[in-house]
């Protein structure tokens, strides 16, 4: 869950491209042939968790607060990554967005020497639901795709998507 420090207001059928920061975790992976084993995963950002949704059906997720940027902000790539998110309001009413929840398991993460990134979209479906989806391409050219700990095939989940049903 990325909570926006400023609420974003979107007009009916409007769209906005924003840049957000997210916490980076570094994995140590042992590779032999086609098999990989994760030795350790660590992060320099102190983790914090939150419950998204109601007590019974909600999801416990990693929490991170981020400013909303219109241009890619500066970030220490060992700690924070930069996400480009295109938010589309598919409804005919003005909508306020204060948080976005992504399925971290299906994250398509890219890295280069000075940047860790992902590209995603968020579609506002109604007054309660937003669908977030990762893009298969980095928003900055020349980046390498990071190792996926969980492949989509093994999860049988809808492709890269997550539907936020507990408000936004």
């Amino acid at each position, binding site marked *: 869950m990325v*909570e926006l420090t400023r609420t974003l207001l979107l007009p009916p059928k409007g769209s906005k491209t924003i840049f957000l920061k997210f916490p980076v975790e570094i994995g140590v992976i042992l590779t032999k042939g086609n098999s990989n084993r994760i030795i350790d995963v660590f992060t320099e950002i*102190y*983790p*914090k*968790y*939150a*419950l*998204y949704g109601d*007590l*019974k059906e*909600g*999801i*416990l997720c990693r*929490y991170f607060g981020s400013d909303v940027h219109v241009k890619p902000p500066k970030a220490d790539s060992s700690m924070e990554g930069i996400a480009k998110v295109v938010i589309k309001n598919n409804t005919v009413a003005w909508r306020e967005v204060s948080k976005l929840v992504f399925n971290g398991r299906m994250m398509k993460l890219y890295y280069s020497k000075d940047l860790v990134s992902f590209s995603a979209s968020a579609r506002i479906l109604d007054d309660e639901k937003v669908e977030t989806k990762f893009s298969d391409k980095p928003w900055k050219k020349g980046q390498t795709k990071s190792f996926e700990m969980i492949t989509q095939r093994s999860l049988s989940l809808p492709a890269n998507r997550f539907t936020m049903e507990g408000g936004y």
Partner: protein
Amino acid sequence: LNLIDYELGGVPINKILLVLIIALAAAVIGKSISLYFTRLMKKRMTRDHIKIITKAFYFLIFFIAAIIVLPIVGINASSLIVAGGIFAIVIGFATQTIFGNLVSGLFLIFERPIKVGDVVNIDSTIGQVEDIRVISTTIRTFDGYFVRIPNMTVFNSKITNFFVNKARRFEYSVGIRYKDDADKAIQIIKETIEEHPFALKYPEPMVFVEQLGNSSVDITVKIWAPFSEWYEVRRELLWKIKVNLEENGIFVPFPQREVWFNSELVTSRKEDA
């Protein structure tokens, strides 16, 4: 050759064929119901429970088939039923508790108020559910004891399942001195909660002055934590709050009482010899 005219052990072949057909039909119906039930309950019950219930169905169908078949082979079913009925009453009285537990077990399996692995409080026994069998439920307490509770007790008791919700709330009451700044204390407590990863950001923790006590200003702290981490968070945070408050000059007071004397109290100080 007319097979119907033949007899086998004094029983006409046609009757034997009828018995075989009924037995076959019972087997087919029993198997079909078992398969249908297994498919229906695959995601709702464990394999062991499905096996027990399908077997019960199977025997019930064969029992009905036997009642149908007995008159065909010349056995008077009514006399057997009467004898069986009396026998059943005797057995029923003898096995009343077992039967009660069995029925309760089946209801527990269907209703599913608890699952294996859940942390529950049943009849003042708190622990993790190890197994739910037809007659009894086994709980492993946090002291390491295995407690077997008859299903009738489980069914009739108030069950608290701590694993149904994703998060659980706990609370402390922290008393500070009257001369301490309560706003500052609240701020320190909030910062301490913020530093703990599993003290959830949402639902938000609550920190407020609950009451002005006899010896202290009582601050109530309510924190949500994931159900799996709840105990650890509760254990760790209380001491951290205490330490952080003391580091900032805010102390938990001892119980105090001011005594006023109606007449002047004359006191003198004795110097040490």
